[in-house]
């Protein structure tokens, strides 16, 4: 990627952060402005388009009838998929999801799953036979850094916006009826990602910052402030002290992010 930016610029970004500043004038603990448009895809059961700086992610939700897993016969199923579509960045290639897309989808998946955000028991139709399957499809439309937080935010916003068809069961067949019910939600997680350069931590890395940072830490918090998912990435490390600092920075950021959402 370093061909995309002059080495000079990358050096400047790195040096600035080492001095506690950022080239886009943000403070180290400052999130970029974001906007959420729910219902962007009116024909999907749920959807949300999130802009975080210039990063843009669209999530669409489809709800279909399927079979439960053998070990959870009374629970609906959620499945998360992420596509880094090639119009979002010249570094994205068409084709099946690569490692980066798979990791992205699995981080978002764990945040939603472990926070028990969806009340999957209410998605059971006929125990052991038929349940609702909730497909969460993450579509990255523009890559300007921190795809994890933008995708997590878009996924949760889309789920909060999801309406399922009413139905009745006749002879073990699901008959769709008029009207809609909201997807049963218990909670929603907030995911906060921070970067590290040498011993400096900073919130919500932009694309150029991602290119020079040592490592990344993403943490998802439940509504009660519990941690429900976490992922370290990148070729660097965290000392115990850095980790403590990162946790506290992430938690306070998650709280202030949560306040900005009206749900």
């Amino acid at each position, binding site marked *: 990627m370093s061909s995309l930016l002059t080495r000079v610029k990358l050096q400047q970004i790195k040096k600035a952060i080492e001095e506690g500043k950022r080239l886009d004038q943000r403070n180290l603990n400052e999130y970029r402005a974001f906007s959420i448009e729910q219902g962007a895809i*009116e*024909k*999907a059961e749920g959807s949300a388009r999130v802009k975080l700086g210039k990063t843009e992610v669209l999530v669409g939700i489809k709800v279909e009838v399927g079979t439960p897993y053998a070990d959870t016969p009374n629970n609906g199923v959620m499945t998360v998929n992420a596509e880094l579509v090639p*119009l979002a960045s010249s570094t994205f290639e068409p084709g*099946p999801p690569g490692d980066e897309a798979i990791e992205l989808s699995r981080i978002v998946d764990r945040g939603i799953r472990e926070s028990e955000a969806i009340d999957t028991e209410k998605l059971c139709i006929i125990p052991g036979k038929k349940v609702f399957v909730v497909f969460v499809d993450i*579509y990255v439309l*523009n890559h300007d850094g921190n795809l994890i937080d933008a995708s997590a935010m878009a996924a949760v916003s889309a789920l909060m916006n999801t309406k399922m068809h009413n139905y009745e069961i006749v002879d073990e067949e699901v008959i769709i*009826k008029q009207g809609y019910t909201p997807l049963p939600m218990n909670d929603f997680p907030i995911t906060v990602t921070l970067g590290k350069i040498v011993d400096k931590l900073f919130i919500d890395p932009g694309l150029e910052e991602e290119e020079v940072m040592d490592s990344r830490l993403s943490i998802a918090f439940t509504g009660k402030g519990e941690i429900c998912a976490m992922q370290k990435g990148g070729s660097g490390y965290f000392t115990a002290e850095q980790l403590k600092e990162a946790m506290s920075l992430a938690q306070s950021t998650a709280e202030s992010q949560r306040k900005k959402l009206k749900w």
Partner: protein
Amino acid sequence: MNEKPKKLINTKGLRLDGRKPNELRSVKIDVGILPNADGSAYIEHGKNKILAGAFGPREMHPKHLQQADRMVLRCRYHMAPFSVPERKSPAPSRRENELSKVIRDALLPAVFIENYPRTGVDVFIEVLQADGGTRCASITAASLALADAGIPMRDLVVACAAGKVDNKIALDLMDIEDKIGTADVPVAYMPNLNAITLLQMDGKLSLKEFENAVEIATGGCKQIYEIQKEALKKKYEIIEQEEEVE
């Protein structure tokens, strides 16, 4: 809930969404909305919502696909899993592969491919919501993405379909008309050159009906062409304003 309507055109001669037989759906276009693409466009054509991004001219990879005497144009038409009533697997279907090819064939006549030998241009089309006529709306957007990327072109390519519903030739079929109707003729067109660059058909039409369909489809194209040009102009006005300010 999937009950099919019996009539697609009512006694007043209006369609299910209130349009007259020869009336377009509403079309809105924005140019230059993808920061990372070299050129881009977003179209809302009826309920279709489609993004197109162009990258290039750039070095062609893999190298053995380079052409010594011309630029290579590649297209990918792709539907988001949530764009259709039943979730679509993100792996490209045979239909998507075919449309990628015919869209490329529709855009190629407009591009001066001899200008940038050995390079490649990629056009990526993502259908975010589909409601009938996605290939046409994709072409309309993709040709703007190419223009926005600064690729030299003979003319913009604009596309629109006509078809047969309730025994009448009608312009710009939406999804339900496409499914229940008896014929669909998508047409892509370069108005300045009076050149048809995409032409497909399915259904049954007499030769006369077909000619009629092509005629009203190119009529629709001409209307959308104005919206295309407006969108392109708007993008460059904004740029000029920004430059003045600086």
